[in-house]
């Protein structure tokens, strides 16, 4: 079975306990595009991503990825080709490890069990740290970083994975203008290299500037398509003014 899109979500329904959070989501993400995932708090954006990564079990539906030969495969078969930066990185910040070490962890997936990072991996980690503008922080313990710097370290770790698909859950939350530019420049570079980038995004002002495609989500897919065709006031209103418990309210 061949698929045109990098990722295809088919009739996905996810529930926490008995409460459905996502209802019958069908979407396709195009290869080599940057797609914004937009919706109000609690819309189910993070949940959708987690379901795509097999971190939560869907009630029904499936997610299919396209591999290098354009064959349709499941997430499991593609693990190392997907990089994910979660909304809240829940790591132990006091862990005895340096910034350099954390970025190097991005290489672990390529190494597999037992094997140790080689010089090539260290070199890649070094370059990625350079890319996010933190080379002078390499030897720092990770607790000694600001929130924005932490974001960038985890971005560098994701870059070190050299994946085909990058899924970022609010990478721009709480970062300053300068960091936002650094991050967006890097993501654009990835797209230019033909990689697929999904970004959960809250700032509607910058959608047109940053993204190729957009997906509006509020429990269901409200709209999806190229930004210049899909992104308008009405759709935004429809997405954000929907009372989740009463269906279409306003």
């Amino acid at each position, binding site marked *: 079975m061949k698929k045109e899109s990098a990722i295809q979500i088919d009739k996905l329904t996810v529930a926490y306990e008995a409460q459905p959070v996502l209802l019958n989501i069908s979407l396709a993400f195009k290869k080599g595009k940057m797609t914004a995932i937009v919706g109000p708090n609690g819309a189910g954006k993070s949940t959708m991503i987690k379901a795509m990564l097999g971190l939560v079990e869907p009630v029904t539906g499936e997610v299919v990825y396209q591999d290098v030969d354009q064959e349709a495969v499941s997430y499991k078969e593609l693990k190392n080709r997907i990089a994910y930066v979660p909304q809240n990185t829940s790591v*132990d910040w006091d*862990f*005895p490890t340096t910034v350099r070490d954390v970025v190097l*962890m991005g290489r672990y997936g390529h190494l597999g*069990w*037992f094997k140790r*990072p080689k010089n090539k991996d260290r070199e890649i980690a070094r370059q990625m740290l350079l890319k996010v503008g933190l080379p002078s922080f390499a030897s720092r313990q990770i607790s000694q970083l600001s929130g924005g710097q932490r974001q960038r370290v985890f971005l560098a770790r994701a870059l070190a994975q050299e994946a085909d698909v990058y899924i970022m859950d609010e990478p721009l939350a709480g970062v300053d203008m300068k960091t936002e530019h650094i991050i967006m420049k890097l993501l654009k570079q990835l797209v230019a290299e033909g990689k697929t980038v999904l970004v959960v995004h809250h700032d509607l002002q910058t959608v047109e500037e940053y993204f190729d495609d957009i997906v509006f989500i509020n429990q269901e897919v409200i709209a999806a398509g190229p930004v210049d065709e899909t992104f308008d006031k009405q759709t935004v209103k429809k997405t954000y003014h929907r009372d989740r418990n009463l269906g279409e309210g306003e």
Partner: protein
Amino acid sequence: MSMITEITLIAVVVAVACALPGVFLVLRGVTMVSDAITHTVLLGIVLAFFITQDLNSPLLMIGATLVGVATVWLIETIQRSALVSTDAAIGIVFPLFFSIAIILITLYAGDVHLDEDAVLMGDLAFAPFRRVDVFGLDMGPQSLWVMSVILVMNALFIFFFYKELKITTFDPAFAAALGFTPMIIHYALMTLVSLTAVGAYDSVGSILIVGFMVGPALSGYLLTHSLKKMISITVLIAVVNSVSGVQLAFFFDTTIAGMIAVVTGFTTLLVLVFSPRKGLYKQQLNQKRARKLLDKRIKTLT
């Protein structure tokens, strides 16, 4: 070998064997789970003893390790399903298993070596008296052999699974996403902790094993920002503690394991106060310095 050399050797091997998995117990914040394990393995020993009627049977070790792992599993299952905190779950499982073991001992095994005192406060002083001999040839104390094997197993585990231990401890979600099953590493670690606890039972007793596991690792944690260095420092401190503990115990003619535990507690507190990186003293000093600097700045402003 003289008796004191043998005892020192056993003490060092026990201390290092405990300290190695201790590094990851401290980093994972599960030291209290390991405390529970070191006690509940007793139930495994008792049950296996009833089956084999032989205190030297290797089945005792296997039974105890299994109960140790069952302890972890039960604690985690209760915690997940009942939505109680980990320490509440420990508070249910640990006393349950442990008291069943104690009751079984008092009811049925009153006259064997399996008495409560020996179990709670094993004694290094007697360790050299149980010896291994092969065809009449004295091969040294049994506990030295047992603990050396366990030490090597622990060291090999950390050596081969260093990367996996590191990533599943630091960022389990990421580890899982990459395909390193954190569950496997977790239970492997806990199995070794159980095995180590059982092995150390005879010489150290269940109360003190946790001290052996946690103390040196905590010192290592406070002294460095690198995991590799933390492991080396932990081992070094474990050696220093046990050697000086044995010396002091002979000097004061008192319990050896107890003395090592006291020394361990003492060095840990010392590090806690004086660690050049994160110590309490250093924090005070830094605050004072910062305040002085600020005062100066404020003065120049006004």
